[in-house]
């Protein structure tokens, strides 16, 4: 009987869902709704933040497109990790440092929507949860780590750790979301959390290091030609 169940599962589960986000239909409706509701305020605030940026400094339109493109490219790159599986960076740390966290909520949501609709990676029902982990927690962590570490005056270190931790905590959040929805029947939620962490977070560590390096390189290149940019959302 159990064998039959597994067999059915194998056919029910889409054979290629290689996104590193929570797959379509893999959160119970109540959970999916909860994460949507939690994400909406950040998204709305982000829309206003973007409007403010474009109104006060229309020249930054191009830079805004740039940080969106950076997230677009990085989240398309599936990179092999030491664990023998693949995952991808998020690329939202860069934009969070330049424009503030909620701007990246909107841009990240666009990236996630694109992947859900055209690539069947992630999903419409799990969009709220994926936006929360990749486009809210990630950018918030990056932003505050950057702000905090800039007090030491070491920009390279601040940018690296901001991007690294933002990337990593995205996947810690994903693990937490899955653990909440799928607590282990005998050992409870934290047991599940550890299991999902073992997959997502461990795979992600080397990729988060790469994301940290790329963010430092790209941000330094932008600053080299564009000294007037105020980082950390300070204008």
């Amino acid at each position, binding site marked *: 009987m159990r064998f039959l*169940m*597994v067999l*059915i*599962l194998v056919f*029910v*589960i*889409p054979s*290629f*869902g*290689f*996104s590193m986000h*929570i*797959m*379509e*239909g*893999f959160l*119970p409706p109540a959970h999916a709704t909860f994460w949507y509701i939690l994400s909406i305020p950040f998204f709305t605030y982000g829309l206003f933040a973007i409007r403010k940026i474009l109104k006060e400094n229309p020249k930054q339109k*191009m830079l805004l*497109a*740039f940080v969106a*493109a*950076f997230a*677009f*490219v990085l989240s*398309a*790159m*599936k990179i*092999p*990790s*030491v664990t*023998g*599986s*693949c*995952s991808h960076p998020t690329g939202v740390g860069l934009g969070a440092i330049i424009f503030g966290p909620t701007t990246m909520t909107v841009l990240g949501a666009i990236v996630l929507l*694109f*992947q859900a609709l*055209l*690539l*069947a990676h992630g999903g*419409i*029902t799990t969009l709220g949860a994926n936006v929360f982990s990749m486009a809210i927690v990630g950018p918030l962590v990056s932003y505050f780590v950057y702000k905090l570490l800039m007090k030491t005056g070491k920009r*390279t270190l601040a940018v690296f750790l901001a991007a690294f931790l933002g990337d990593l905590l995205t996947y810690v959040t994903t693990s937490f979301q*899955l653990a909440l929805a*799928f*607590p282990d*029947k005998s050992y409870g939620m934290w047991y*599940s959390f550890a*299991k*999902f962490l073992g*997959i*997502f977070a461990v*795979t992600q560590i*080397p990729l988060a*290091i790469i994301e940290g*390096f*790329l963010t*430092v*390189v790209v941000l*330094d290149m932008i600053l080299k*030609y564009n000294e007037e940019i105020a980082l950390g959302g300070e204008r």
Partner: protein
Amino acid sequence: MEKKHIYMLVASLVIVIFSLIINSGAEFAGADGMAEEVISQINQDYSPWFSPLWEPPSGEIESLLFSLQAAIGALIIGYYFGILKGKRQVKNDSGKNIV
């Protein structure tokens, strides 16, 4: 580009190559596929209640869309750096013209 940046890019490459070497027998499938396995271990009764509206018909089409995503992004990134560089060049050149 500073030396620091070159080290960082080389280190990134080394991380990827190292991953491929120490786990050369591995499948390198997506991490979410592994998560699906864990979910089915934890809760055998769970079946997804919604399926994607559209799925790429094959792995080839999927990689086409992925490379398009990366290409469009890379185009914008290159365009932006091109503008920045061009602006600086114009600034430098106009200085020369006066002399």
